């Protein structure tokens, strides 16, 4: 069997903006226009834009690849091209095997049918045979966790239940290739975890996966490789943590209220003084940066925030007085530039975290500098299931 499951070769895809002729009475002027302006497949016509520009990638068996990028970058377009819903204007797409695309898992649901009936309907839409569904029905219902409501019409379901049932059907199709688009966002954390586990088990069996999500944590858990898509082009391609970092840095935003205050040269180090973005839970981390202020230093506070990137959860928010870095000798000095280090214990659980720094001027009661997502780091550990803080529990006999 060929090792390459998906081959996306220099694909271009364009879309039209604005109104389109969609009634018969518009057809004739539209046709006349087309005849006079010989539209070429690979040239941009009026009001057209490239949704994908020269995108190439390959996915091998047993490999999971993540696609990240801002809204409108072309992620879903790639998935639709892969599943055959759209065709490229230029380039080639090769798919070796039965591809299952979970683009919107509950798309096939009919609101008036019951959950059970919709399992059958959606299952066959996704390419399952009736007998296969018969065999797996119990498993599917069990996985969705809504067995009490399986004979209730789907229109009475909550959106979470909708998504759960949809994913449960989709997860049981046994595809050769799995393509997943942001389908987990509706389910609760527990269900999301269940889904990731399911996908991991598929991956272990050698099923290649293309995974689109804004949930960076699940991308990190699932994928070996990733690429960062921006304006229809591959901006960065490679190892998953590199790409995630690149993506996160693109979210960096600096707000200056006072030109005299600047934080620069920020970097993250581990306990041994090596630059690092990956920490073990409980390890010591050091953030170094260069600080410049133009008023007496004891009037400032440094705000230090850590957020979990997957859900924006605020892990900590400290205000540290800058007076602690005061030097005896340059106390009088009003303007000051200094290298500063911030040490802290990474008592966090596994995940991706982002650091924001801000400077607060006490006498004037206002923020003078704010930079969000200035640094990113990930935490690794093996024992926790869920939560936020690393308490280092130990079990022993007394």
């Amino acid at each position, binding site marked *: 069997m060929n090792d390459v499951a998906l081959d996306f070769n220099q694909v271009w895809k364009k879309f039209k903006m604005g109104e389109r002729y969609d*009634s018969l*009475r518009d057809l004739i002027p539209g046709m006349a226009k087309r005849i006079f302006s010989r539209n070429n497949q690979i040239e941009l016509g009026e009001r057209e834009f490239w949704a994908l520009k020269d995108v190439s990638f390959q996915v091998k068996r047993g490999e999971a690849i993540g696609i990240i990028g801002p809204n409108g970058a072309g992620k879903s377009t790639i998935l639709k091209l892969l599943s055959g*819903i759209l065709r490229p204007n230029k380039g080639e797409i090769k798919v070796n095997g039965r591809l299952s695309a979970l683009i919107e898992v509950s798309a*096939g649901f009919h609101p008036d049918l019951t959950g059970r009936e919709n399992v059958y309907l959606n299952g066959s839409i996704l390419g399952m045979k009736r007998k296969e569904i018969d065999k797996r029905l119990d498993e599917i219902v069990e996985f969705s966790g809504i067995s009490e409501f399986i004979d209730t019409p789907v229109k009475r379901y909550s959106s979470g239940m909708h998504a759960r049932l949809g994913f449960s059907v989709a997860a049981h199709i046994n595809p050769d290739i799995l393509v997943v688009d942001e389908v987990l966002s509706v389910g609760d954390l527990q269900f999301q975890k269940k889904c990731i586990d399911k996908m991991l088990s598929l991956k272990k069996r050698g099923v290649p996966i293309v995974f689109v999500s804004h949930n960076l944590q699940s991308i990190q858990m699932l994928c070996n490789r990733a690429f960062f898509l921006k304006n229809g082009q591959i901006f960065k391609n490679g190892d998953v943590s590199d790409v995630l970092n690149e993506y996160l840095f693109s979210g960096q935003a600096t707000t200056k209220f006072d030109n005299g205050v600047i934080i620069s040269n920020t970097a993250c180090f581990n306990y041994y003084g090596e630059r690092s973005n990956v920490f073990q839970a409980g390890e010591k981390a050091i953030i170094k940066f260069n600080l410049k202020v133009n008023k007496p230093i004891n009037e400032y506070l440094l705000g230090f925030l850590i957020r979990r990137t997957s859900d924006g959860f605020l892990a900590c928010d400290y205000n540290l007085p800058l007076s602690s870095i005061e030097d005896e000798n340059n106390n009088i000095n009003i303007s000051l530039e200094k290298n500063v280090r911030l040490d802290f214990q990474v008592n966090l659980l596994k995940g991706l975290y982002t650091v924001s720094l801000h400077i607060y001027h006490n006498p004037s009661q206002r923020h003078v500098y704010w930079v969000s997502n200035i640094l990113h780091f990930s935490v690794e550990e093996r024992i926790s299931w869920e939560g936020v803080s690393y308490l280092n529990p130990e079990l022993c006999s007394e």
Partner: protein
Amino acid sequence: MIEMIKELIQYRHLLYMLTWRDIKIKYKQSVMGFFWAILMPMLIVAAGILVKKGFSMVSGRPLELTELASVSVKAIPWAFFVGSIRFATNSLTGNSNLVTKIYFPREVFPISAVFANFFDFIIASVALTLILAIAGIGMSINLVWLPFLIFLLVLLACGIGMLLSCANLFFRDIKYLVDVFLTFGIFFTPVFYEASMFGKWESALLLNPVGAILEAINTVVVFHKSPDPFWVAYAAIWSFGGLLIAWFIFHRAEFKFAENI
């Protein structure tokens, strides 16, 4: 072509499920249930009887049983045809979320629409068969033609339905045109009257393939004669040729569906 059929066979389960879905929803929401299937043909039959009665009053001839039988025998397939076309025309646009989200051969939509209507047709036909049997219309060997004629009608409905569903996707006003055509189509098709009433213009009316099929069904069921082979062949060319061309066009346009819907 063979590729297309193969793909359709591969997705036969889906075809079955979508047909089943359409039937189920139709009957689930209505208190009247299966009465639905008979309602529409009954209305057409009632209208036909009224027209026939009018004819007989004008001409002074008494209304015969065979005439009533003819009207009902032709009205039920006509109701099926109209229902299929109307349903199939909207089948792609009505399932736009599936068209843009999941890949499978889109032929399944118009075809399942026709099949769902065929289910109604079967129920109505069973009811009609009972009535005709009680009325003593009798049977003959010529009834063997009937399945073939119905098959031609189904193929014709599939072909036209495919073409129109595809057209309606690109031009949303097609469905209004279709509605108008179907409403007045009954006057141009020999349902309430016989094509033979028009004398030398008979062939002009039979040029309409639906008319040719309906007349053949009438000949077979009510008059127990074998149908005119020329017009059956003519209708068969329309059915097979139409389906082939429609399918081809549909297939060529298919990849544009998701962007244009």
